[in-house]
């Protein structure tokens, strides 16, 4: 009987903790998905031509105002016709955060989140907001196997303070965030997986200005990475030289929109400054898009993307050898986005992709195709539900 009473008291206490707060709202569930058809032709590296239908991305959101100044948000993302039984695609918990809004100058977001970096990073996976089907290279998750996306833009943070300071019609935007370094353990032999095995933080931020529809800013991050430990072992150098290697990212962004004109551009520089003097690993990326609204529903645009990335390759030809090479990817693309209504958008995009590899002269590398190009035709439908 005493137990029963204790349980009842506990339930009443819990109940009182969970009673509705002023400003609390019901749980909202919404999301979007984008299905695409892709035709790739002209690849000289042996791939294609091919046609592919794909459920490119589906995002499912849960949002709730917890109290007047507090809200919570969860974002699940399913990629590439996700199917666990067929081992296709992937499912990610992209965001799970709680936000405290004190004022327009100060918002605090705690939990897994995509940090503000340049113009597109925080909204790169919001396909209904973007006119693109294939996003500018470093923001396109389906390029993950060819382009080390996590090197170019911060993928996640865990604490972020952001807001804006109004000054007349100008708004000065600011954001500062902390997160993991990207060295999250995925090998259970080395302890608990999903845990950052370094003692380092990602630190980053963005400072920008906004004047009506003109927005510009600079972004930067500092973090440490252990990506190149393998390289250190191979070079028979002290591994500690390759552990916690500082990496800097600098970015700048510009976007503008008028009733007819749409412009956006970004530049990203990735620098590794210590420990790898003999090897060039820096990377740059930029893109620029110009579009024209023929009507409020129809945007037609042209865009150009450019990546210069330095990489190392280790070849085993009876004897292990290491080569530093440079890859240049240039994409010229044009497309349109047409909003059928508030919920459905049709998109089309054509892309010409040119890939060049600057490979050091060595007999064992002579069979590598150092330049090839191909064309991509895509169309897609984007749905908000």
């Amino acid at each position, binding site marked *: 009987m005493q137990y029963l009473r204790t349980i009842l008291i506990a339930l009443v206490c819990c109940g009182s903790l969970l009673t509705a707060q002023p400003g609390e709202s019901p749980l909202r569930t919404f999301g979007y998905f984008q299905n695409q058809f892709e035709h790739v032709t002209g690849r000289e590296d042996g791939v294609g031509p091919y046609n592919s239908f794909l459920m490119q991305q589906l995002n499912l959101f849960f*949002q709730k105002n917890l109290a007047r100044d507090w809200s919570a948000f969860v974002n699940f993302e399913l990629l590439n016709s996700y199917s666990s039984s067929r081992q296709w695609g992937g499912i990610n918990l992209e965001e799970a*955060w709680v936000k405290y809004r004190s004022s327009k100058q100060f918002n605090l977001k705690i939990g897994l989140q995509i940090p503000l970096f340049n113009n597109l990073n925080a909204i790169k996976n*919001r396909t209904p*907001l973007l006119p693109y089907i294939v996003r500018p290279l470093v923001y396109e998750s389906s390029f993950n196997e060819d382009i080390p996306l996590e090197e170019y833009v911060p993928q996640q943070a865990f604490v972020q303070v952001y807001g804006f300071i109004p000054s007349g019609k100008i708004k000065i935007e600011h954001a500062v965030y902390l997160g993991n370094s990207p060295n999250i353990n995925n090998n259970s032999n080395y302890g608990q997986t999903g845990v950052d095995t370094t003692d380092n933080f990602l630190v980053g931020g963005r400072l920008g200005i906004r004047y009506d529809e003109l927005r510009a800013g600079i972004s930067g991050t500092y973090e440490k990475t252990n990506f190149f430990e393998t390289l250190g072992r191979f070079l028979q150098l002290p591994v500690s030289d390759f552990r916690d290697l500082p990496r800097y990212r600098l970015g700048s962004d510009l976007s503008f*929109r008028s009733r007819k004109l749409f412009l956006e551009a970004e530049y990203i520089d990735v620098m590794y400054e210590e420990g790898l003097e003999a090897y060039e690993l820096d990377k740059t990326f930029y893109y620029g898009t110009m579009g024209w609204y023929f009507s409020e529903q129809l945007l037609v645009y042209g865009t150009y993307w450019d990546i210069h990335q330095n990489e190392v390759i280790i070849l085993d030809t009876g004897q292990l050898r290491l080569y530093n090479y440079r890859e240049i990817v240039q994409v010229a693309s044009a497309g349109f986005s047409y909003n059928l209504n508030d919920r459905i958008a049709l998109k089309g995009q054509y892309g010409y992709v040119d890939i060049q590899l600057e490979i050091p002269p060595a007999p064992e590398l002579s069979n590598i195709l150092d330049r090839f190009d191909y064309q991509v035709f895509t169309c897609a439908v984007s749905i908000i539900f």
Partner: protein
Amino acid sequence: MHRTIATILGSFLWLSFATGQVAVIANKSVPVDEVTSQQLLDFYTGDVKLWENKDPVIVTDLKPEGEVKALFYEFLGKSPSRMKSIWLKKMLSGEGDPPEALKSESEVLQKVSSTPGAIGFVSEANISDDVKVLTVIPRKD
């Protein structure tokens, strides 16, 4: 008889609109007596969510397309479709909800008069003493 009354009423409403006009209205609890178009834009884009007294700003929209809505959005300097895309970005980023779109001006009046911190817009001819008028948007001829 009914047709005559309707015609007179219609003419009166048309004249009211022709001379003026859209009133930006707010609940009597709001701590300001006037707003600029920039302040309104900040409210309607969700950039500013609190009044000076820290009460939340409850924004309402008018669902039917028409001259009243067109004039209001022109005052903000945004087209309705641009505003929708701004709200969509806020919603998909977890930063806020679109304003509640009400079916008629009488619903806007009812909502604004009964909800502390609420703000909306109606034809000047339709305002009542239950709400505070923050500004009147003149019609451009």
